[in-house]
């Protein structure tokens, strides 16, 4: 520890601290612009100049290391003179038109100018003017306001993983811009808006729609990925105007993925379902809750009494709250059915019979920092869980974490990668088995008895390298991604991952697809004895379906089959925040659901944290919180146990006493027999389906600005050039792709980051739904 005295206050700081760190510890604020606790030190704004004993010149607090016995004055004459001098320089070319600037009221320069700026300007020449840049649909630029602090530049390089912005030109011509012909298309790009201390980078969707002081702030939790990013939802007149990060060092730190930040735009979109709707033949009419709920209740009763409880199936989105999932399963079970599931994109449910508990990440997010080696199986991690990927990136860039992957995809994750075993989906199980076998050889430990016979004799170099990395790492982890969970042999991938983790002493778990991928299990929204899972409910169609927050065409493992099953059903009740043609095609009743900002609720994220939140606004129109809809429905059906008077009662019932369910989190599974996969036909093509980041759930699909980004581009047929050559197609050819569900026409795009024989076609988009399942064989013909 080092002793330092700042403004007469003595503090002790650890070795390697800067004067800025020490000041923070002492509770002293030193004005600054370029310094940011999560970014590298630039020391370029010079606003934090302070007086240091024996130093001939004022020194920047952010970059000056503390030495023992140092004495610092942050508000002495020398320090103030330096700080005021810098402020004057910053203001000479900065437009002094705060009233028309979108940053007004939350501008660091404006705030500090009050304390350090002069009352009048000594600079009377013309001010410098820059042309504004186009950074795409999310970020607005006013380049003349830029003070060249380079926080945005450092963010893209250090947190985003690729330097997308840079400072071009010299001297007072220096300006921030993208590289020629390039755009800012990081999935984390919106953070530069928060980082920009002035109005040079602002939110395009939010721009000029409210002033900071008019906004109410509500804590919330992102409903999108499994991380459970903490949010501040800002509202004006009961309308969500903006979403900002709520700092949580255990999860998202001070960052937000663009999906979390901009999805709020869908809340006020035209497709919001604002009134209960009932089908009348081919026509639809709006109806009051008072009429529609008794109808639903009696219709459900009729199905159950005529066809039995098993005739009913409930399918819920994994983005639903604990309360919704819990009451849904309670209602269905009350009606005598065990058919309830929330794992809609999954195909292989064999692990259900042998799993020891609730699958989760198997570690905390903070622990990623200390990992030496990680194997990520079947994942589009960067787009599936942008901030979890950021943690891995940070560790890989700063601490030398070795990142290995197994899967059909090797797209750029913007981080150093150790080994990427690029294999088609059909070979993933064998590759994992090879890694396990290589590990057994390296560590001298024996393979489990049940797996020994299945171990391959040939071990690829990639498998060997992955095994080496895991064996060398003192702290290692194995994660199964969304593609692995949706894989037709998911249970075997799970089993081998467990074996690899056992042999290497690694922790082991699932990334998880959605906000309640863990919570759904805890709420028991999974089939019980004799119940049908999501796949079986579609493959053996039910007479009646209850749909919660899910779209039959886009949110299922096989949209074609799901639509067909529901089309044939006698009754489909959809509780949904949005209206859609597909819902109108299959449903008989549409009940307007309040999305996450309009309902209280709880998500249990991938690390098992329970995060409850209140509604940020009232429910729009006649939409209602899901837990209330289900509770009233339970009452109308005269089911017992539907007397919760607050969402917390439902949560506590779902999660048990005090919500202590940690003991239930367990990724272990027992043995799963080998699925005898139908050998892929020679020369056949395998589908690789990613769920693009901005198509993943009903809310984000309807966020207009996100839909204008590169990540939301129209789906194409990506394939490696060897596969293109085998098919005789060229990039940008149009092809007809036929899957088991049907055919679609797509444009060909060359993608060398795919295993040979694979065609990557995005899922969850209306244009690719006709293909059917997310995996399996495809045929491609040139048009």
């Amino acid at each position, binding site marked *: 520890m080092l002793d330092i005295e700042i403004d007469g206050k003595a503090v002790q700081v650890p070795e390697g601290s800067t004067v800025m760190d020490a000041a923070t510890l002492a509770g002293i604020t030193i004005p600054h612009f370029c310094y940011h606790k999560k970014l590298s*030190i*630039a*020391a*370029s*704004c*010079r*606003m934090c*100049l302070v007086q240091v004993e024996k130093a*001939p*010149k*004022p020194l*920047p607090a952010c*970059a000056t*290391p503390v030495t023992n016995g140092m004495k610092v004055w942050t508000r002495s004459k020398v320090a103030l003179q*330096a700080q005021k*001098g*810098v402020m*004057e*320089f*910053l203001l*000479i*070319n900065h437009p002094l038109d705060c009233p028309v600037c979108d940053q007004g009221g939350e501008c660091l320069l404006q705030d500090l100018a009050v304390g350090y700026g002069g009352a009048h300007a*000594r*600079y009377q*020449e013309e001010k410098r003017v820059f042309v504004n840049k186009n950074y795409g649909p999310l970020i607005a630029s006013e380049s003349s306001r830029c*003070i*060249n602090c380079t926080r945005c530049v450092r963010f893209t390089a250090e947190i985003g993983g690729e330097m997308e912005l*840079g*400072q071009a*030109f*010299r*001297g*007072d*011509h*220096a300006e921030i811009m993208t590289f020629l012909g390039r755009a800012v298309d990081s999935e984390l790009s919106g953070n530069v808006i928060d980082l920009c201390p002035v109005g040079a980078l602002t939110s395009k969707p939010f721009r000029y729609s409210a002033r900071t002081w008019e906004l109410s702030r509500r804590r919330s939790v992102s409903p999108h990925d499994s991380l459970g990013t903490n949010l501040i939802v800002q509202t004006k007149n009961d309308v969500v105007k903006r979403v900002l990060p709520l700092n949580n060092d255990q999860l998202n730190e001070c960052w937000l993925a663009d999906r979390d930040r901009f999805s709020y735009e869908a809340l006020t979109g035209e497709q919001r379902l604002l009134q209960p709707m009932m089908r009348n033949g081919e026509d639809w009419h709006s109806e009051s809750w008072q009429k529609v709920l008794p109808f639903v209740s009696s219709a459900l009763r009729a199905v159950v009494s005529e066809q039995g409880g098993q005739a009913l199936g409930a399918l819920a989105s994994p983005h639903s709250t604990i309360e919704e999932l819990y009451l849904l399963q309670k209602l269905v079970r009350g009606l005598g059915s065990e058919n309830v599931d929330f794992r809609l994109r999954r195909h292989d449910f064999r692990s259900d019979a042998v799993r020891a508990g609730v699958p989760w990440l198997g570690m905390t997010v903070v622990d990623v920092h200390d990992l030496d080696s990680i194997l990520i199986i079947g994942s589009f991690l960067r787009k599936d869980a942008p901030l979890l990927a950021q943690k891995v990136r940070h560790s890989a860039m700063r601490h030398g974490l070795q990142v290995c992957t197994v899967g059909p995809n090797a797209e750029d994750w913007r981080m150093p990668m150790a080994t990427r075993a690029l294999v088609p989906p059909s070979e993933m199980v064998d590759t994992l088995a090879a890694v396990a076998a290589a590990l057994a050889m390296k560590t001298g430990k024996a393979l489990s008895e049940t797996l020994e016979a299945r171990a391959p004799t040939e071990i690829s170099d990639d498998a060997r390298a992955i095994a080496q990395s895991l064996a060398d790492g003192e702290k290692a982890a194995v994660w199964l991604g969304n593609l692995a969970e949706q894989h037709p042999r998911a249970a075997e991938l799970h089993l081998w991952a467990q074996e690899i983790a056992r042999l290497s002493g690694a922790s082991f778990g699932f990334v998880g697809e959605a906000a309640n991928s863990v919570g759904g299990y805890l709420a028991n929204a999974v089939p019980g004895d004799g119940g049908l899972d999501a796949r079986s409910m579609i493959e053996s169609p039910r007479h009646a379906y209850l749909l919660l927050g899910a779209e039959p065409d886009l949110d299922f493992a096989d949209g074609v089959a799901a639509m067909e099953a529901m089309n044939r059903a006698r009754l489909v009740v959809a509780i949904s925040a949005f209206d859609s043609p597909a819902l109108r095609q299959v449903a008989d009743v549409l009940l307007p659901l309040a999305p996450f900002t309009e309902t209280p609720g709880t998500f249990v994220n991938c690390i098992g944290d329970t995060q409850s939140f209140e509604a940020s606004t009232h429910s729009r129109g006649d939409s209602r919180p899901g837990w209330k809809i289900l509770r009233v429905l339970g009452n109308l059906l005269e089911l017992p146990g539907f007397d919760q008077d607050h969402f917390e009662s439902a949560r506590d019932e779902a999660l048990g006493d005090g919500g202590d369910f940690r003991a239930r989190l367990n990724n272990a599974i027992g043995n799963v027999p080998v699925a005898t996969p139908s050998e892929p036909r020679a020369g056949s093509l395998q589908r690789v389906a990613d769920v693009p980041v901005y198509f993943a759930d009903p809310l984000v699909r309807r966020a207009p600005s996100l839909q204008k980004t590169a990540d939301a581009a129209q789906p194409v047929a990506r394939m490696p050039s060897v596969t293109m050559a085998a098919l005789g197609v060229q990039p940008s050819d149009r092809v007809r792709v036929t899957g088991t569900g049907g055919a679609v026409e797509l444009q060909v795009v060359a993608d060398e980051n795919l295993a040979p024989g694979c065609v990557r076609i995005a899922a969850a988009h209306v244009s690719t739904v006709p293909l059917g399942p997310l995996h399996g064989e495809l045929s491609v013909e040139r048009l």
Partner: protein
Amino acid sequence: MSEHRLILAGLDGDRTWRLQDYVARGGYEAFRKIIAEKTPPDVIIAELKASDLRGRGGAGFPTGLKWSFMPRSFPGDKYLACNSDEGEPGTFKDRDILRYNPHTVIEGMLIGAYAMGCTRGYNYIHGEIFEVYLRFEEALDEARAAGLLGQNILGSDFSFELFAHHGFGAYICGEETALLESIEGKKGQPRFKPPFPASYGLYGKPTTVNNTETFASVPFIMKMGGKAFQGLGKPNNGGAKLFSVSGHVRKPGNYELELGTPFSELLSMAGGMRAGRKLKAVIPGGSSAPVVPADIMMDCTMDFDSIAKAGSMLGSGAVIVMDETTCMVRALERLSRFYHEESCGQCTPCREGTGWLYRVVHRIEVGIGRPEDLDLLRSVAGNISGRTVCALGDAAAGPVQSFVKHFADEFEYHIENKKCLVPPAVQDTGSQIYVSQSC
């Protein structure tokens, strides 16, 4: 006293830059001796310390001390960089060394690499003297062919790879950390210090950066001995040094003389003032050095300490001589414009302040200055100096402060009378370019 030529000695012939010419002048003897005798690195550094050699790039930091900062037992590569990014107005010595005697720089770098255990070196050459870069590449080829660079040099276990690298003319790349950034392929912007290059330099490895002339002096020090070199100059100001004399003298050019030589002698070596005009002022160490009025300058000797005492600095040894036809406002306007153009834009005071200084000086020069402008110049320059990441801020403020200090009357005359104290007709005669007979 006359010139004392070391680096410039024997360069009167044809094609003096060739290896065989250099060897004929005794080149590579010092290095060969070190290799043959396996001289311990400590001995070399001790010799350098004894020579009192101070960095020739401008800051005048003792070279032996700098070399001793390099960590001894560092695993992995250590780097050596030569700063030939000579971009300061008035300075033109390094380009002539590289043009006529490139091998002395290579030999100096070899000795440095040997003494500090560096495995790789770069010579960063200013982009606006491209032919010099090409010539240095030729010299490197010669040295490689002769087994003087590469693996196991001269059969020893010492290996050193040396490369030439050219910039694109940015003045800031002469700042040593900006130079390193530029070699790394990044935008040439200085790093903040600490850490210094000796601990975190090129590609994050320990690195020593020296000026071209510094390296060029090393072989001579090794040959004549540190004490003898030191004896050429004054205590704490060892050796001989090149001075680039420009401006209103009869014979502008590079002159190599012992440190401590009176300025008056340098002036007469350069042929004295043109057309018998009177000396008005001298910028003794390149454009960033404060200007010194004639009477003070005539009492100075050309060494670090004497010039510092006169309130300026020896800098790179670029002596800009101005006679009585010079308008000091116009001269300062020119300098301020240079610094405004060359500021890298990284830190606030320099980025915003250099432009402000130029605009104010410019408006005084064109006759729209205001009475408060001199105070404004002093204040703005004061707010820049000592507050920036690198020394460019000080370099921009220094001329303004010194011109306004010593020639306030000229500035005031400009502001009050909207015209020059030195009549334009006189200035015009002064600005005609004079070409000396011997050039």
